[in-house]
């Protein structure tokens, strides 16, 4: 029999349903691998004992009708999980145990999945390398001392290292797609409003969206199907016909029009990325789809606009961490002193930096020049996409401007770190769905991803394109479990 780690989520589901394998076997397998993989530091909080018990319970009374029958899954530690510590990678929530469950994780459990544990991430999802986590750096299983990307770095690392058959992350400016690209995995950011934000520790409310991170596109379709739901507890949740993404998955993309935006050909783009992109274009052509040159003229302004909007919302979203109701408190001589000490000691440097940026751009006298301006630029960026989608069905771009970098390499240069998100951020600003799939490697052998951006609520289409491309690319990481030795 094939080793469990070589099975996809969809494989596992069908083997559980056909009783070839039990939930307990799968769960114990991933727990064993996870225990041997401490070096990666992918987990913040383990739920192994409870998970074993739940797997046992599932096997005793299996429900094969559900979509994730007895499947263990570890999730990003940004999702609140009832009675299991939820930290958002921050000291300020180091000991926070929610009494409630996020809608997304609730959807997983009600589909039969079992919580394996909580995965490392950048503090409050603010980072592109997982280096801002209070719980330490995460190793990319691709190579030692390589960042896994961020902010869903622990999720990407755990997935690529086969510590969980699939996982979920959140994406505010690329936090699912960039780590997916860095680890040779598939990551999808759904249309804003598809997946409920209820119970997810908020970073930037108008940009945050949870999504699946999986080994392949079929798994991605299945997990998205489970995650996506209309939720009346989230005012920005959108009611629309949610598809059976897996059932409808098709690799036939003949006649589809795929746009190639010229503005994504940035200065100093490494040749490897150029080549990768061209490879993607050729594959699409071979599949009978049409390539169309398009223009998204305001692309260059997306990143600056993002670094106004996201910190502004974050500065307000993170005001609730004040040492009063929950979380870390540093005693002070009076209320203000307590606030200032708590927040100074409880937040890490990057979080503080972004709170400061956000506070500044919203402050009196600067609102119009920064925040309002950014909201207008956001409109222009959305208009660009609307224009292009009159002509094409989807857009193909690289996922990131480079492959994974070394731990510490960009830590002290915030702007160069921010530039990592240059291809992913416009999608969040426009609220569109996008998927990153592994498409090749650079000369160091590190994975590189391609991004397919779709129309709003047209997840099925980008999944189909990704599925078709995936078949032809046939990417494999071929890791040797170095971190377990």
């Amino acid at each position, binding site marked *: 029999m094939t080793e469990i780690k070589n099975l996809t989520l969809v494989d596992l589901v069908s083997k559980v349903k056909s009783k070839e394998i039990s939930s307990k076997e799968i769960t114990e397998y991933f727990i064993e691998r996870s225990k041997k993989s401490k070096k990666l530091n992918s987990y913040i909080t383990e739920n192994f004992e409870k998970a074993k018990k739940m797997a046992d319970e599932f096997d005793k009374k299996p429900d094969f009708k559900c979509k994730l029958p007895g499947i263990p899954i570890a999730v990003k530690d940004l999702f609140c999980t009832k009675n299991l510590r939820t930290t958002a990678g921050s000291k300020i929530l180091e000991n*926070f*145990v929610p*009494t409630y469950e996020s809608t997304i994780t609730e959807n997983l459990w009600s589909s039969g999945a079992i919580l394996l544990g909580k995965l490392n991430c950048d503090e409050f999802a603010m980072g592109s390398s997982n280096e801002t986590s209070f719980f330490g750096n995460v190793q990319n299983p691709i190579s030692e001392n390589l960042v896994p990307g961020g902010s869903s770095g622990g999720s990407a690392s755990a997935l690529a290292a086969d510590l969980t058959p699939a996982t979920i992350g959140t994406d505010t400016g690329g936090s699912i797609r960039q780590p997916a690209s860095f680890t040779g995995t598939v990551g999808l950011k759904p249309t804003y*409003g598809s997946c409920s934000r209820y119970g997810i520790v908020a970073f930037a409310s*108008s*940009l945050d969206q949870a999504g699946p991170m999986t080994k392949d596109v079929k798994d991605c379709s299945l997990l998205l199907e489970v995650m996506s739901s209309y939720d*009346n507890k989230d005012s*920005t*949740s*959108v009611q629309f016909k949610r598809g059976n993404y897996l059932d409808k998955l098709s690799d036939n993309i003949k006649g589809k029009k795929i746009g190639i935006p010229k503005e994504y050909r940035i200065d100093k783009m490494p040749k490897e990325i150029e080549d990768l992109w061209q490879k993607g274009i050729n594959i699409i052509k071979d599949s009978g789809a049409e390539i169309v040159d398009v223009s998204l003229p305001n692309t*260059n*302004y997306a*990143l*600056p*606009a993002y*670094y*106004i909007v996201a910190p502004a919302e974050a*500065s307000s979203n993170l*005001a609730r961490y004040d040492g*009063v*109701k*929950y*979380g*870390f*408190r540093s*005693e*002070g*001589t*009076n*209320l*203000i002193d307590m*606030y*200032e*000490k708590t*927040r*100074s000691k409880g*937040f890490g440097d990057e979080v*503080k*930096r972004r*709170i*400061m940026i956000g*506070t*500044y751009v919203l*402050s009196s006298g600067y609102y119009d020049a*920064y925040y309002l*301006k*950014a*909201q*207008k*630029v*956001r*409109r*222009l960026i*959305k208009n660009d996409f609307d224009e292009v989608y009159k002509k094409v069905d989807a857009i193909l771009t690289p996922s990131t401007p480079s492959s994974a970098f070394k731990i510490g390499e960009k830590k002290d240069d*915030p*702007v160069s770190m*921010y530039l990592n998100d240059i291809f992913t951020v416009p999608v969040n600003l*426009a*609220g569109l769905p996008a998927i990153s799939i592994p498409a090749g490697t650079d000369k160091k052998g590190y994975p590189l991803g391609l991004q397919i951006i779709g129309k*709003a609520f047209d997840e099925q289409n980008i999944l189909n394109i990704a599925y078709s491309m995936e078949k032809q690319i046939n990417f494999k990481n071929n890791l040797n479990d170095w971190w377990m030795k």
Partner: protein
Amino acid sequence: MTIDLKTVKHISKLSRISLEDKKAEKLASDLNSIFSFIEKLNELDTSKTEPLTSIAETTLKLRKDEIKSGNIRDEVLKNSPDKNKDFFVVPKVVE
């Protein structure tokens, strides 16, 4: 544009995050490099553009006026740093 130390201190006050002088200087320099990158937006003429306040393609959903959350005081106070059973507790506020 340059963000000076005084501005950094003012923002730190507004965001209720205390800041040592050394860190404030480093932060000022970080903020300056970030803002010089942000300034790129000034190239764009947005005088005729409406700001985009919400990206969700839907209208605001309305809830019925019903009481669904009962007394969950223990749950609400469970994570509180101070172990008072009835109240949240903060250092004395002098009006």
